[in-house]
């Protein structure tokens, strides 16, 4: 599956370009994040809170033109994401200065 991370997290994890992760079914945001954090431990706590395991408030999840941020982390992802045709986007808020 393809994942596009924010610039700062790509730099932190030394990821060049899109991230490709192998995830087994069911294909959910939680499983993708589990795979990312297993491969890049330094990203633990940067996308979801260590304690609550919920999305950090200044980040959102998008795929196929839809905002998935308020869906359950265990909701099935669109087929296009599961097949790699479309990426899961982790986007930071346009905020601050």
């Amino acid at each position, binding site marked *: 599956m393809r994942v596009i991370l*924010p610039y700062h*997290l790509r730099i932190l994890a030394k990821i060049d370009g899109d991230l490709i992760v192998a995830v087994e079914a069911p294909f959910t945001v939680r499983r993708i994040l589990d795979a990312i954090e297993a491969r890049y431990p330094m990203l633990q706590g940067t996308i979801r*809170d*260590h304690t609550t395991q919920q999305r950090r408030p200044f980040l959102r999840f998008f795929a196929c033109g839809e905002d998935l941020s308020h869906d359950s982390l265990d909701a099935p992802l669109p087929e296009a994401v599961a097949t790699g045709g479309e990426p899961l986007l982790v986007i*930071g*808020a346009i905020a601050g200065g």
Partner: protein
Amino acid sequence: MSKVRVLVGTKKGAFILAADGKRQNWEVSGPHFPGWEIYHMKGSPVDPDRIYASQTSGWFGQVIQSSRDGGQTWAPAGNKFNYQGVPGTHQWYDGTPHPWEFKRVWHLEPSLGDPETVYAGIEDAALFRSSDGASSWEELAGLREHGTGPKWQPGAGGMCLHTIILDPSNPERMYIAISAAGAFRTDDGGLSWKPINKGLVSDFMPDKTAEVGHCVHHVAMHPARPGVLFMQKHWDVMRSDDAGDSWQEVSGNLPTDFGFVIDVHAHEPETIYVVPIKSDSLHFPPDGKLRVYRSRTGGNEWEPLTNGLPQSDCYVNVLRDAMAVDSLDECGVYFGTTGGQVYASSDSGDHWAPIVRDLPGVLSVEVQTLS
């Protein structure tokens, strides 16, 4: 020849400034971790190439970075700061109970004896220790749980544990300070703690001399005088000669005794430095003049140090962890401003010059003296 390495944390990255003992020609390295707030960087006194950094952002939370080569390269370390047990509540700004929530690491203090041991002061105020080079962290919960914790309230910048002082003469003794809870001391290696705020007066509190609730901005100690402490509070410069059991005001003739930084000359334990800030409502120097004040008498009698510092139209602030001294024969003094300048003096403060002028706002300054 000796060298100095200045570790500068800013709102948008870390910078390392290096020079030989003359402290005239500086090499600037950075920004490291560009775009992130670097609240603090500090090196181990045992192995100065072992440096730890607090890297934080509102978007992505906390990262701890670790270097083994003096800041040339870095590796992310452990970033889990879990409160021990059920954290309970402290007071919120409006006095209502508020749960303890980790926000960021304000200060890192490497052990005096082991380069792999480091302490972290965090917001919401608590003390953590790592014994494995910052890979994992454990709370010293005796501080938060000694009894006064539920009464602690945040200051404007958050409820932060910003000062950690290790007593070189007694490995069991440590001091910490919290805005806005006060100063605390342990005499058993962090297992138990007691407030050490007797003598502090805070007019903003209903009980002005309460056991806790004072907004301590910074505490400094000379390693050769471990029982003598100097404090810059939210108003008042204070001194203790009995390891914090009692405090006396030493503001003396300062033009204003509000401020954030305080530090001690490396070789003169009675010579201290502050940067007076106009007031708690106006966080800039009085009269637009950036002045460091020095006392050679441990307080009360202060002289302005202005040579090389802007004396008009200067409205920067100097934050609590943004001053440091080196230990070269002629003690160097350094401080960073919210305007992005880092000033250095190579003669105990008599003359100043900017090392850099245009960094992002400076959050912290530490100095390493390298042989």
